[in-house]
């Protein structure tokens, strides 16, 4: 079992932090868990991740890696260790920023006429395509939103066919910009856009 826990530390309910799969009895017999420092410590371009758990899987991964890479640049590894060993209030601050962006997004989009469920964790909202665009699909909605509201999101179909009907909104703009996006979305939703996005961009 391969578990992806890259957003383990971007959670918004302090009394309910996401668990590791390895907390389950016997998990080490069958599971390996992947984590990353990208989100927790805002280090995405550093490329620093971990896998932990079942010895045979860790060994197999180590074996193949020994043919492919020499590990990350040593200063990156030393700095990553300092991140893990050091004071954690920076991680708390990063979490608090995502949380308040989440709240601003959900509130301001609701006022704009777009109901987005408030995510309890991660740096993303998984937002249902507004009713009036549901039939056109998530890709078309994302394109229209970009062209008319100047807001870029990813269509849910980028994550597989069962992602249809949703778009993913990443909390990577500041609160001021999120509010601006909501104002644009409000105007956009009050328009009725009929031409497909392709025609618009061809102009």
């Amino acid at each position, binding site marked *: 079992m*391969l578990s*992806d*826990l890259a957003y383990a530390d971007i959670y918004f309910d302090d009394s309910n*932090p*996401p*668990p590791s799969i*390895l*907390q*389950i009895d016997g998990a*080490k017999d069958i599971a*390996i868990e*992947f984590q990353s420092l*990208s*989100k927790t*410590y*805002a280090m*995405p371009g*550093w490329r*620093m*991740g*971990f896998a*932990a758990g079942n*010895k045979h899987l*860790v*060994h197999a*991964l180590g074996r*193949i*890696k*020994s043919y*492919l*890479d020499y*590990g*990350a640049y*040593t200063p990156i*590894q*030393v700095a990553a*260790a300092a*991140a893990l060993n*050091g*004071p*954690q*209030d920076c991680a708390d601050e990063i979490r608090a920023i995502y949380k308040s962006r989440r709240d601003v997004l959900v509130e301001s989009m609701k006022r704009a006429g777009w109901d987005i469920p408030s*995510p*309890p964790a991660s740096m993303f909202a998984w937002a249902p395509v507004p009713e009036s665009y549901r039939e056109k699909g998530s890709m078309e909605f994302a*394109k229209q939103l*970009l062209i008319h509201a100047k*807001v*870029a999101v*990813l*269509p849910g*179909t980028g*994550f*597989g*066919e*069962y992602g249809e009907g949703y778009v993913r909104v*990443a909390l*990577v*703009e500041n609160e001021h910009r999120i509010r*601006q996006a909501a104002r644009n979305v409000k105007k956009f939703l009050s328009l009725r856009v009929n031409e497909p996005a392709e025609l618009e*961009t061809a102009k």
Partner: protein
Amino acid sequence: MQTDFYRIKRLPPYVIEEVNILKAKARAAGEDIIDFSMGNPDMPTPQHIVDKLIETARDPRSNRYSASRGIKGLRRAYSAFYQRRFGVKLDPDSEVIANIGSKEGFANLAQAITAPGDVVLVPNPAYPIHAFGFILAGAAIRHVPARTPEEYLSNLGRAVKHSVPPPLALVVIRRIRRRRSWSSISTRRSSPSRRSTRSGC
């Protein structure tokens, strides 16, 4: 020269690319695009972490090839973190490995364990690397509908039963729900105590 390479043909256009092209067009036309598309954190890395990088980079010996599995101090730091955060003990030598990115590590493991045609169960929707890490490794993917945790669980049973040969592996992602959904799982988690109140971050 042959140009329709076997693996490249199996990779659909990355959706991010399609949105990126439109974004680039709009920006070229002078538009200010508010960009919620990529999950690319915009905050600065905390200062003490950057300082440690610079300090270490000044050491003339730090330029050499490093350890593929990660230096021991890093694997130890991760074990200690795991213990504090999840209450799980990990042997830094045999149960922990550092990857050059989480996605890269995932794809490397897929490559390490997969034989051509092995069946792998992947939730859908999920991050592209979950399916394509295994597709690149020659696996046959069974996409399991997972719009909700309940849907994934009930479809998994069927998928396991009807996959021939039986699946090699299964990918799980966390769809965090409010409270109760995890309470049914027996855990040995001690209450989290990781947050230091020291300042200086």
